[in-house]
């Protein structure tokens, strides 16, 4: 199904946010997830289901001043 991850359309398998991170080969401890503008805590990633058209932001810390 089609979702928007970090501003770009992407085809992903249906499932939870935790499964999505695994599909993207991302360590859940190393990213913060925003699902349709709501932050999802790490403990809740396995309970949140991804639906067609969802907007997902995956962020982390980078160098900055």
């Amino acid at each position, binding site marked *: 199904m089609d979702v928007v991850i970090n501003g770009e359309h992407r085809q992903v398998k249906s499932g939870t946010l935790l499964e999505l991170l695994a599909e993207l080969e991302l360590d859940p401890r190393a990213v913060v997830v925003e699902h349709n503008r709501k932050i999802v805590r790490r403990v809740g990633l396995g309970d949140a289901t991804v639906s067609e058209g969802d907007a997902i932001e995956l*962020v982390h810390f980078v160098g900055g001043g």
Partner: protein
Amino acid sequence: MTTAVETIRDEPLTIGGQTFQSRLMVGTGKYPDMETMVRAIEASGADVVTVAVRRVNLDRSKESSVLHFLDPKKIFLLANTAGCYNAADAIRYARLAREAGFNDFVKLEVIGDEETLLPDVAGLLEAAKVLVQEGFKVLAYTNEDLITALRLEDAGCAAVMPLASPIGSGLGLLNPFSVRTIKRRLRVPVVVDAGVGTASDACVTMEQGVDGILMNTAIAAAQDPVAMATAMRLATIAGRQAFLAGRMPKREVAMPSSPTKGMLD
């Protein structure tokens, strides 16, 4: 035989209940490579290190998290809201940063203008109030305006961070009077953030009596960032010690240092 360097005993810097040994805080942006960044941070002696919140690069070939190179057990990660141009965005970034799970501190930036990167103080105050309500320890990046600084303190900010000069400009401390005034009038710590270009700028800034200084480009964009980080560490200490020592009064005429009596005929 060793010689002890005598320095004036100083209180450690405490912000939002957290105590820091160094009065120098450094950023992690714009380094030529990560190894240089790590060595420069170590040379700076800083225990507070700023980071930015950005999207993960999904193809992951180009960049990775700064946390692959920094140990959050050894340094205090201070997330910023750099790049945010309104209160709502800054609040969103701050919440995301806190969710990373390290601490509830945020270096709050709400930028008002792309050319100068000067703060939007209305948006800054608005965001500060919301974030303080949500339990954040807000360190507010602001201009060197006393009234805004007072309002930020009233809003509950843990520290106020007036600029020395625009971000990345390297122009040094342009308005020492205003920064001194802010320091004199605020109860919360005042940490000068942005604009320092070289070690003398850091020293002059600390001589104003402010509690700390934060810089990024001055170190990262130096020809030798590690050497500049060492210089900044020493300059920060030198400026602080000079402030604590209390400088001599300025005078417009000379006064001889050597005796005027005992001269030969």
